[in-house]
């Protein structure tokens, strides 16, 4: 009998002595994603592809090689969704943002297209490593502390000589920055789509056809370059206005 008691105690001890701690109950984390979909085409339904050649209403041929932009202080009232979001169509595809959050709190989103002046002149190395504003992530979108970030960057090539010879060697480059050219946006009545896996998504449309041709038409033959410099104010204002108006909820 004594053996059985001892065996029982030892067996019980063996079984429980190395028991792992119970893992914490699984915490449900909800993710919110915002994708931005660039479009081109007069019907507004053609998804834009980088490096693809499109015909413009003027008879030019055009292709986009880079589309990048920053949004900052995305929020709904006082509820912050994200301090900064960065769209880099070539390197990151459509995704503008993926953060933890509760979609029900963001039926409207306001913010800044560009980098708010309160952030624009901070040390770009001092932002958290996962911030799109950290210089390791910003790369060429940071000009320097005095000027700050490039708010949006649109680059491409065009053939503006309608002679039938395909020669896309006319570069265009719109680099917009400095505190004067950030612009607010306010999207309301947003409908988040449930993707499953605790993820909800919004899609925003970036209509590059409207940007170039319908809002304030840009003639790439003569209006092909701005770095927001002092002598480029007229084109800078046009490009800034066009870009802001070409973004909308999808």
């Amino acid at each position, binding site marked *: 009998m004594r053996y059985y008691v001892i065996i029982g105690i030892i067996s019980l*001890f063996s079984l429980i002595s190395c028991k792992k701690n119970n893992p914490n109950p699984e915490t449900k984390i909800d993710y919110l994603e915002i994708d931005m979909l660039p479009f081109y085409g007069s019907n507004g339904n053609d998804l834009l592809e980088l490096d693809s050649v499109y015909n413009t209403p003027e008879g030019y041929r055009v292709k986009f090689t880079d589309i990048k932009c920053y949004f900052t202080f995305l929020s709904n009232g006082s509820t912050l969704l994200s301090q900064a979001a960065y769209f880099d169509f070539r390197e990151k595809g459509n995704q503008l943002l993926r953060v933890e959050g509760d979609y029900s709190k963001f039926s409207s989103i306001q913010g800044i297209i560009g980098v708010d002046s309160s952030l624009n002149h901070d040390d770009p190395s001092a932002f958290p490593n996962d911030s799109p504003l950290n210089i390791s992530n910003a790369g060429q979108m940071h000009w320097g502390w*005095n000027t700050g970030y490039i708010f949006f960057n649109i680059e491409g090539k065009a053939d503006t000589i309608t002679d039938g010879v395909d020669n896309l060697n006319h*570069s265009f480059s719109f680099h917009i920055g400095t505190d004067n050219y950030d612009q607010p946006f306010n999207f309301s009545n947003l409908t988040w789509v449930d993707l499953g896996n605790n993820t909800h998504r919004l899609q925003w449309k970036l209509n590059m056809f409207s940007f170039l041709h319908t809002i304030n038409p840009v003639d790439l033959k003569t209006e092909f370059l701005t770095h927001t410099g002092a002598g480029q104010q007229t084109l800078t204002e046009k490009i800034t206005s066009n870009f802001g108006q070409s973004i909308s909820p999808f």
Partner: protein
Amino acid sequence: MKNIIFCCLISLLIFSCKKDKTTFLPTPYTLQIPSHFPDMIIPSDNPMTVEGVELGRFLFYEKRLSGDNSMNCASCHLPTASFSDPNQFSTGIDGIQGTRHSMAIINLGWEDLFFWDGRKSSLEDQILEPVSNPIEMHQSWKKTVEKLNADNEYRNLFFKAFGEEGIDSIKATKAIAQFIRTLISGESKFDVMYKYENNMSLTATEQSTLQSIDVEEWAGYDLFKSLNGADCFHCHNGPLMRVKKFSNNGLIPNEINDKGRAIVTNNPEDNYKFKVPTLRNIALTAPYMHDGRFSTLDQVIEHYSSGIHMSPTIDPLIEFGSQGGVQLDAQEKYLLKKFLLTLTDQKFLNNPNFQDPN
């Protein structure tokens, strides 16, 4: 029978919670990141350790990594040349030359893609290649590991670096990567200029350096950043003096028609695009460009001033390409070169921790 069961259970009790064998714990290594630099992201599977860095340093200078024991990493990445090669093309142990210039090893801990065409996406992966490459060190990693294993000192170094016995190629590349991540350059005159213009605090030494920066160097810096001047900063900016991108900077394709990034991506839009290198220590890393075609800084400046070759994939940021370049006059070229020389970091070059430990 009962006694046997009893003994078995006692044994089970004794051994069931046995701890793992005690191993050596390497000492965490604290990187000295300059205050104006971003953090360096260290791969979670290769944490920096004092012993790992030390082993990596030995391996970097270890000629037994090559097939005939004649070459080490430093053969093509000379410390005196800011860890690049003064030759246009490096020559391997069989006398075969490569087709691209050896890139300078500076601040690689902040890079994501390696080689001129970005074909490797981690420093560890990059390091794997030259040892077995037939036109470089030309030795299988199996043979390399055998050689290292035959050396008791290396067995000890590996044990200390990784806390366990055994040598393999993965550990070797991890150790070399750790050493390379310590090769940080951030104490040039330019760094003082960068910190000063951005109102960052300067040490007493930096204050002294600041006083030594002359008006021509400042003027060169202004030109460097000016859109209507040299317009260099689009691709070379920030404390790391580069942006992360591949660019066609208007070079005429070379004799072998090296298409650069497109070889990796198979995308013709990437034709003739190469990784934008840092300009740090640029005065010491000649010859220049992916194929070392320019032997002097003057030639490089002339290229951007008047030698731009237009092609379908030319970087749109080469904004004056259609007129051949930014058209600098002689004084501007002189000033720009003066600024480029401020990027030389003597402390980096003379750091004893970077030299051959033997």
